[in-house]
């Protein structure tokens, strides 16, 4: 169902960057939008503490319920020849625009990604100069709060009208290699559901993305395929205690102390948290761990792979099941029970927006090759979380575990309207 495109016109600037003398960061915030919440989460996730921004700007397109954000995280020197350093260190910043929806309709779409990529220096540079210049050398006392921005005409040409996609994008996070960036950006521009797209990562970002960003798509230059393995945050091995030393009994519990009130929004000091300013990983890690695991034969994450059962001796070896080709229409489902077949609803794997996504009770894992065996699939899906989604590309292999069966899937053809997969199914 398409949504009418009659949102409130105008884009209010957002500027996040520090000045020469004042270590405060929010320069411009749209009226009516709190610096804490969705906007802050998106900006922080894109900026990621400035990591990897030298020569590699990151482009953001995000949609919350009522707002759309377009912007770029980059080195300040990309945007200004004079306001980019505190005298010792180069600064980084985020400059963007927020459009708001209203009773008359949703927020308008942003520019096409190639337009923003090619023009961000002039578009964002003008905004940066305009908001930063009056305060660049101002004292801290004048910069404690951001200034409020109002909607103004967008610097980009109005995009041609396109229908909005009412279909929610598959939940979770996904890594997109450069060839898919433009399509991912367009899909986010069409989306009416919460989504956050950040393109331009040189390598996988670290950390967990903040809650409330909706579906997350990360454009990573180094992503070799639709999904890239992410090194799991494995603990550094520490030396084991010396054997000759007797093991200590459990440490006595500390004496009880009166609980202290915690600041609102604060984090527990003793809880290890993000390093490097909060990346966007979280759900991505969940998604790509499966790939990392499969690529390394099961030990990429440091977890113990599920034991592969040894073959049971038997007098007669049953013939291996023959693959079945199944075409699943857009918004349709593939079911394994009683036999692989397309169904309209209630299946094990769905197809939408060129994505395969697992039902809530199913586990879908991408395999490095297209010919996974039963034992291989069983090992890959063991212990994996349910309901993952992947971009469907021809030749890609998956393992699927449902409540009743196990299957290897190989994508044959992908069209907007349908996907054809070869399914080899086994009972659990």
């Amino acid at each position, binding site marked *: 169902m398409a949504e009418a495109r009659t949102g409130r016109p105008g884009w209010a600037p957002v500027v*996040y960057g*520090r000045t020469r003398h*004042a*270590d*405060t*960061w*929010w320069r411009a915030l749209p009226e009516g939008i709190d610096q*804490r919440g969705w906007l802050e989460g998106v900006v*922080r996730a894109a*900026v990621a*503490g*400035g*990591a990897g921004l030298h020569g590699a700007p990151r482009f953001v397109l995000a949609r919350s319920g009522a707002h759309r954000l377009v912007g770029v995280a980059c080195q300040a020197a990309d945007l200004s020849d004079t306001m980019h350093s*505190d005298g*010792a*260190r180069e*600064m*980084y910043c985020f400059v963007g625009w927020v459009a708001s929806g209203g009773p008359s309709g949703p927020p308008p779409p942003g520019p096409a990604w190639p337009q923003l990529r090619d023009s961000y220096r002039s578009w964002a540079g003008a905004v940066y100069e305009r908001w930063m210049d009056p305060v660049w050398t101002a004292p*801290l006392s004048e910069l*404690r*709060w951001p200034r409020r921005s109002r909607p103004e005409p967008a610097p980009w040409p109005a995009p041609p009208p396109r229908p909005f996609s009412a279909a929610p994008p598959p939940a979770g996070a996904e890594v997109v290699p450069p060839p898919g960036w433009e399509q991912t950006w367009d899909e986010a521009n069409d989306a009416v559901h919460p989504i956050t797209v950040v393109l331009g990562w040189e390598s996988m970002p*670290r950390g967990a993305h903040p809650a409330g960003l909706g579906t997350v798509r990360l454009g990573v230059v180094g992503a070799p395929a639709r999904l890239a393995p992410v*090194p799991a*945050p*494995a*603990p*550094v091995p*520490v*030396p084991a*205690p*010396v054997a000759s*030393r*007797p093991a*200590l*009994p*459990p*440490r*006595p519990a*500390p*004496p009880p*102390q*009166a609980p*202290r009130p*915690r*600041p*609102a*929004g*604060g*984090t527990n*000091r*003793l809880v*290890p*948290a*993000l*390093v*490097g*300013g*909060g990346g966007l990983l979280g759900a991505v890690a969940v998604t790509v761990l499966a790939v990392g695991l499969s690529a390394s034969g099961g030990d990429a994450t440091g977890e113990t792979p599920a034991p592969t059962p040894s073959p049971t001796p038997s007098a007669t070896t049953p013939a291996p099941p023959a693959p079945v080709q199944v075409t699943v229409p857009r918004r349709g489902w593939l079911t394994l029970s009683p036999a692989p077949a397309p169904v309209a609803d209630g299946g094990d794997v769905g197809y939408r927006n060129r994505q395969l996504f697992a039902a809530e009770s199913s586990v879908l894992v991408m395999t490095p090759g297209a010919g996974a065996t039963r034992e291989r699939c069983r090992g890959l899906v063991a212990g994996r979380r349910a309901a993952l989604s992947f971009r469907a590309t021809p030749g890609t292999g998956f393992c699927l575990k449902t409540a009743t069966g196990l299957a290897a899937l190989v994508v044959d053809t992908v069209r907007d309207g349908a996907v054809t997969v070869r399914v080899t199914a086994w009972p659990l």
Partner: protein
Amino acid sequence: MTDLHRIGLSMMGAPGAGKSTYLLALYAALSRGVRDCTLHEADRNADVMLADGWRDLGERGRLPEPTDTVPRRHTFVYAREMRPMAHIHWADYRGGALPSFVGPDGSPDAEQLLWDVAQAHGIMLVLDGEHFRKPVGPGRREAVARETLTQQMSSVVTDALTARNREGRPLPSVSIVITKADVIDWRGTDAPRRLTDLVEELRDLLPAAFAKRVVTAICPVSVGALERTADGGVRPDSVSPTDVHLPVLFHLACFYLEERKGLDARMEVLAADRAAARREAAALPPVPGRATRRAHERIALRLQEMDRAEHAMKQWRELCQAEAAAIFPMLRYVPIYEGGVLATWAGTGRG
């Protein structure tokens, strides 16, 4: 690994004071190991990032990215003689968090910083050594206080100390870390600076650090001159971290000392409880009966639990004692003050 001590260190300093750079140098030094003491990030990726940051600094002279409103948090595993001893929780805040407002319109990281300081076992106050090239006399004091944010630091530290005194909790140890100490002329013939003079200047700038019962170390540190080469790099021999490990070792030693004191106090309470239980047993009527037998059994169980608790406490106390004893000699040239007076018990301050 699951039963290591958890130590919180909190670092404050003005923007550009060198907090992030110090952290890189500290990690570079202690991840290699200093006298059997090592520090490793618990997260392998964070370990790589810290190493990358140090390499960028050492090879290209690129300073770490300024910290924005998202503090960079680390969990380090401290080990000595290849034995993991403690988790150190560390957050690197932007300098601007210190003078920021809190509350609904304020900065979330400013609130987190205050919370961290209120809970920390050790507080590191980072001051840029550039300000201490020359003596900080009355004529410069206000300007230096303004630029180093020592007024805000004093306020935050005072608040933390008074709150803990009120609640009867142990006070945090405090280190005053003077970064870029290589720019200070300590040995020159033309009016060299003396550490004792610097300490006196710090008393005026940060009186809270010399308050009653507060244990404070003065730690000049340096990552080296970082002299530039013609191609934009840094001369390898100009990268030379000096004494960067000492503040952390100081806080560790203080933590173990404080932990040992706490265990001593709890063992005293336990001894009193045991005596009370024995008196209770002795007071039971001599006539055997079911009720008396049950009372004896209950008391015997309590005594057994107390024995187990005491055994555990003794072992942990010995560990804390041993750790403090192992670390303090490494601090022999660090001036350590308790209540503003040179702490002779630490065997330090001779340098």
